[in-house]
């Protein structure tokens, strides 16, 4: 056994063994560092006697230190082995989840890419002929202009500046004519005192332009 270890030294001191000056210095240092070591060995004298009477030295494990070291080594090996198994088990259990998750993401990404490509194809080529063009939806006319002046959902509408320089008169062609039987003078404002009340189009007049 290693007699120089602090624990062993403490045990020998508690057993009442006479220590040499060097060993006593080590004990003093231990007491100084940790007051809990400062135990009166007389307190443990009865216990030590009882233990010595019950257990003879013959029953001690031969080469106890070697046995202890070997035992601790085996314990450490067992622990390391268990930890390694645990790590492997963790990897094995985590692998299918990770692979499944990555597989789902791949599916989502592939699906999105497919939808994106399909949308581009639809907009560009597949249904190009049946897709209404801007000119079909928004009729505009600007023969002398690069940009349209007026936007409309009516196909037959056209518009242009009367004078490109002035640009304050816009000629719009293609609007449905207002029926002659509608009296815009009667709708005009300010109305004469006799007609201050709002005047609405009479219901018997057929006015298809204003019917939605």
């Amino acid at each position, binding site marked *: 056994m290693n007699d120089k270890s602090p624990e062993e030294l403490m045990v020998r001191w508690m057993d009442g063994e006479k220590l040499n000056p060097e060993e006593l210095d080590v004990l003093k240092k231990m007491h100084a560092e940790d007051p809990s070591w400062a135990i009166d060995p007389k307190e443990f004298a009865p216990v030590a006697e009882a233990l010595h009477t019950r257990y003879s030295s013959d029953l001690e494990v031969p080469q106890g230190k070697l046995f202890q070291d070997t035992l601790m080594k085996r314990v450490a090996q067992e622990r390391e082995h268990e930890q390694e198994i645990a790590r492997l088990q963790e990897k094995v259990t985590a692998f299918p989840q990770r692979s499944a998750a990555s597989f789902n993401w791949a599916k989502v990404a592939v699906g999105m890419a497919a939808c994106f490509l399909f949308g581009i194809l639809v907009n560009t080529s597949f249904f190009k002929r049946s897709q209404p063009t801007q000119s079909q939806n928004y009729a505009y006319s600007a023969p002398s202009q690069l940009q349209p002046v007026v936007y409309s959902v009516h196909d037959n509408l056209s518009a242009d500046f009367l*004078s490109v320089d002035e640009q304050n008169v*816009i000629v719009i062609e293609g*609007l449905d*004519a207002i029926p*002659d039987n509608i009296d*815009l003078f009667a709708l005009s*404002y300010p*109305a004469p005192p006799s007609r201050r009340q709002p005047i609405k189009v009479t219901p018997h007049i057929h006015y298809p332009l*204003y019917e*939605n």
Partner: protein
Amino acid sequence: MKTSTVLISSLLGLMFSCIAHAQADPGKEVIGKLKGSIVYATNSNESSQNATPVSGALQRTIVANKLPFATYYLLGTDRQDVYKGYPNWLKPMRGSDAMMLSYEPKQTTAEGIKVEVSFWQNKQKIFSTKTLTIKPGTPLIFTGPQWRNGKVLIVLELEQ
């Protein structure tokens, strides 16, 4: 008693905060006033008791642009504020929704106001313009639909 006082003060605080918030809305700033007019332009001699000949800047613009009509009658006029961040409506024919204008300011420049104008007939949008600059003293005229022996003109003027 204390509870009612706290409740009333909370409501007043909420009301004042709403008013303050409404006042702080920069979009409600008035940046000008637009006048919308409906004019009947014709070469015939037809007239009406309600017909009012055009005058002022509109008349000058008509002459300057040599519009091909002999007579111009004002059928209706409406004036509305131009809000910095909100669209607004002009209803020159006060008696009906036959012809209306909506406008949305886009930018204020040194020359005037850039707006997008839409023309509506009986609550149906007929056309919208690209962003146009309306200058004070220079009306913007649209030649609108045919009526009887002439055309209906839609006129927008920025008032100073």
